[in-house]
């Protein structure tokens, strides 16, 4: 099975499958994002958010950013979403509470969305993207190229300071969490 898949990967056949995969993933992402907005039940919103985040991870996979996709799944789909669900469990006595946004909130949200959409469209129109071709990919990726390996080397050399600062950030989060939990009781 794997050999056939690998053969398929080198064939031009994959080039025809790739757009289909993209549309499938994009459809899941956009539809579930739409469902988050339409849903009024916060628990269902969380489940739709899970689908959206997974879809975005799929996009990262398609862009050959495997580590980013894995981090998206581990940290966002696995961690942040759990935290949201825990937050709902801990705060809301009634999770079937309907969320009714005020009128000004709707206006702000629509305005912000349109602004971001305009920004993205502007970026899309003005940015000149190079034509994707096999030659560029091969030039960027010499034999034995491993993205995760490259990132690991970066973390130990050029990005050593951010790497260590991240540990300090995690320390701050842990101590802050313990402090807040203790204050709540007194």
């Amino acid at each position: 099975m794997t050999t056939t898949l690998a053969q398929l990967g080198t064939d031009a056949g994959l080039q025809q499958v790739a757009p289909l995969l993209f549309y499938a993933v994009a459809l899941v992402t956009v539809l579930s994002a739409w469902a988050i907005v339409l849903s009024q039940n916060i628990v269902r919103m969380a489940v739709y958010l899970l689908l959206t985040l997974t879809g975005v991870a799929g996009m990262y996979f398609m862009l050959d950013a495997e580590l980013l996709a894995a981090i998206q799944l581990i940290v966002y789909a696995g961690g942040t979403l759990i935290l949201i669900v825990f937050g709902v469990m801990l705060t809301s006595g009634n999770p079937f509470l309907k969320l009714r946004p005020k009128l000004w909130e709707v206006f702000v949200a629509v305005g912000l969305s349109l602004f971001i959409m305009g920004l993205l469209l502007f970026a899309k129109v003005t940015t000149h993207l190079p034509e994707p071709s096999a030659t560029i990919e091969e030039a960027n990726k010499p034999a034995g190229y491993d993205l995760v390996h490259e990132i690991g080397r970066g973390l130990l050399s050029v990005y050593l300071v951010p790497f260590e600062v991240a540990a300090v950030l995690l320390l701050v989060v842990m101590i802050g969490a313990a402090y807040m939990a203790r204050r709540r009781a007194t």
Partner: protein
Amino acid sequence: MPQLLSIALFVAFGMVFVVVNLLIGKFVRPDLPNEEKLAIYECGEPTIGSSWVQFDLRFYIVALFYLVFDVEVALIYPWAVVYRDYTLPALVLGAPFLGIVIIGYAYEWYSGSLDWVRSSINTSYKGTAGIDMSKLARRDPNALEDEALGER
């Protein structure tokens, strides 16, 4: 990309497998509902009230710890991948990272935030020493809180 194709095939097969089996089950099984069968299953116990109750705050601390170590794993993974090639530098440069996070863990442990039953600092119950928590846990939290406040 071949990896992605494998993942897509795996996901698609997983979805189809679940849906097809549920559909087959729907067509094959006899459909004789009664009140007992439609009741919520809770390990054979009769259900009491709604399951949408407010959970104890201690769970949130556990969730936050989970998130912290989750992020740590995400950061440590590329480091672990290159560890074999640069053993000594990776060890020297990775030790402070792990050390700083472990300091946080040790602090939590020391300060009692990880204690589940004994500590009263991070629970919503304002218990004092000498209270039998296991006995009190079965009682109404509000009455318990009033009692604890009354004692002061």
